[in-house]
């Protein structure tokens, strides 16, 4: 037998006697002696039209209510502090999620979100059956696989190399220098790429000095992924290594000593002590990377690609920008964006589950 409380939660009637306060979504100390015991958990239904609840239940709710009020009163300053951030999240993070409705509508600026016509999955179908869809998916997946293969391990390798350096000064110098590119903006880095790789840029001068033909790098779709991934490594390798260095510092030094006594060389120490030692951090960062997998780097691609390189460079997020923002095709762009977010969410959720099953460190 069910009834609805005024908080909208379906609850079963007949609470157990020894745990009378097991009601509600709030985390209240359950076996609190101050909670008055419930005498008759009785629910009366008259023709299903009117609902009346027992005196005991009212008593229960009142007691709970008083606890909630007391909590709010006790925490009033914390609530006060939290008010602005809360509004921020509702407006700027959950507001856009509500705006996703237009993915299922034929959004018309004049009519607004509410009065635009529903079109169901029309935009999704249009996207999925577009012959361009597969090119976008292929480009997105290929760039991301490249990133996982070349970009993800790079900071780990750098951290391992730095960890083998004993002289403090040199190590600190390399660290300082390698963090630097992280602080350059995407625009600066792209500006450098565009000009250094230009037909009269230094890279081409070097190529020609060695007798090669000059290469219009940014005009060739074959080169795009290489340029994208290698500059990404260049920019992020140092900063990414910080977290691994922190993890390395936490590995118990006595493990190395005993390994040395057992005759393990440096390579074996890395393999059997260092890598297992930082495995949890690797696992967590891998999961976070997977979560970003589809939305990756649209700023940089937007700045770098040209019509000539769409063939390999156009990914789902740049397509959203082109069609949705520049082309003002709001509903379609939103539908594609939603498609992308859902796949990313499923990916990270699945990967987290997998990590848990494998016993690796997971996000939640």
């Amino acid at each position: 037998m069910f009834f609805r409380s005024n908080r909208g939660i379906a609850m079963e009637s007949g609470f157990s006697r020894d745990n009378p306060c097991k009601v509600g979504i709030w985390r209240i100390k359950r076996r609190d002696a101050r909670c008055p015991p419930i005498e008759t958990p009785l629910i009366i239904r008259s023709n299903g039209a009117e609902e009346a609840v027992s005196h005991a239940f009212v008593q229960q709710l009142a007691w709970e209510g008083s606890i909630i009020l007391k909590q709010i009163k006790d925490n009033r300053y914390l609530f006060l502090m939290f008010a602005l951030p809360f509004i921020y999240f509702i407006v700027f993070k959950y507001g856009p999620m509500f705006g996703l409705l237009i993915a299922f509508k034929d959004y018309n600026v004049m009519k607004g979100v509410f009065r635009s016509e529903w079109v169901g999955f029309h935009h999704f179908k249009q996207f999925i059956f577009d012959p361009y869809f597969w090119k976008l998916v292929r480009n997105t997946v290929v760039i991301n696989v490249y990133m996982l293969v070349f970009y993800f391990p790079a900071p780990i390798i750098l951290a391992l190399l730095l960890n083998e350096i004993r002289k403090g000064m040199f190590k600190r110098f390399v660290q300082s220098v390698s963090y630097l590119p992280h602080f350059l903006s995407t625009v600066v880095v792209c500006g450098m790429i565009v000009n250094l790789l230009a037909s009269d840029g230094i890279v081409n001068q070097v190529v020609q000095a060695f007798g090669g033909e000059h290469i219009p790098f940014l005009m060739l779709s074959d080169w795009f992924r290489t340029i994208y991934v290698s500059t990404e490594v260049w920019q992020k390798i140092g900063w990414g290594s910080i977290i691994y260095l922190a993890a390395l510092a936490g590995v118990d030094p006595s493990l190395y000593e005993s390994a040395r006594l057992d005759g393990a060389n440096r390579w074996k120490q890395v393999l059997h002590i260092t890598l297992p030692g930082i495995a949890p951090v690797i696992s967590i960062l891998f999961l976070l990377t997977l979560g970003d997998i589809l939305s990756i780097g649209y700023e940089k691609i937007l700045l770098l690609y040209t019509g000539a390189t769409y063939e390999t460079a156009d990914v789902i997020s740049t397509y959203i920008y082109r069609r949705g923002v520049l082309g003002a095709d709001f509903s379609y762009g939103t539908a594609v964006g939603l498609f992308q977010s859902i796949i990313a969410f499923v990916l990270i959720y699945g990967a987290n589950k997998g990590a848990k099953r494998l016993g690796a460190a997971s996000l939640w």
Partner: protein
Amino acid sequence: MRKEGSRLFDVLNYAILIALCLSILYPLYYMLIISISDGQAVGRGEVSFFPQGITFATYKVILDNPDFLMSYKNTFIYTIAGTLIAVCMTTLCAYPLSRSKFFGRTALTAIIIFTMFFEGGIIPSYMIVNGLGMVNTVWAILIPPAISVWYMIIMRTFFQQLPNELHESGYVDGANDLQIFLRIILPLSVPVLATMVLFYAVWHWNSFFPAMIYLNEKIKYPVQIIMRNMVIQGELSSTQSAAAEANALGANITGLNIKYAIIFATILPILVVYPFIQKYFVKGMMIGSLKG
């Protein structure tokens, strides 16, 4: 045998790390020397290690360019105001969530962390900002990025590891949560606050995408937008006419000199402060990294 292998590894290791440093420092140095070299010498490919025919005319051209100066000033304003707002908002969010007695904290944290993994996307966000009448105002640049969930978690972790006795002694003395926060917790939080200031300031200094979609008046553009237009999109009319003007005055520079000079002028503030604040960044990353 083992010793030798170890030695070889050390040599290789040093070589790799030095190569990495060179690959980072040389492009920056190269841009600097091109920006102060004679345009003709650059064109002939003579400049690779030392500047040729040193001239600062390029920088003079940039400083005379009203667009660039205006955008530079805008970026300063956006960075300072944006950082101030972001640090305040992030602190207001992180502190209540760090208190174990805060009622409903688990649910609220979950609500916030969820936004890290799922978001509305560009277009719905644009519609919200537009609906609030913020498009083409500074607020579109300052408010939407006010809280980064990731930085908020770093901050919350920091607050959590402060001893709870601080709060208890505060309560005993009759202080409320607000007073405890302002008088006891904030003074102890200088390291994490400094980290947040640095993170957000760098973010604002470098950001260009919000400005690209939300601003449509040149007078409000940050320097990154101007740079994108001049350097990447090669909106050369302005750079070339400026170069021609300078050449008429006897300098010998080309659009390329000016492009590199613009890049260099944009990263200069970062290059200048970087050596001094670098170690704080690292500490800041550490604060959030392992306990996170």
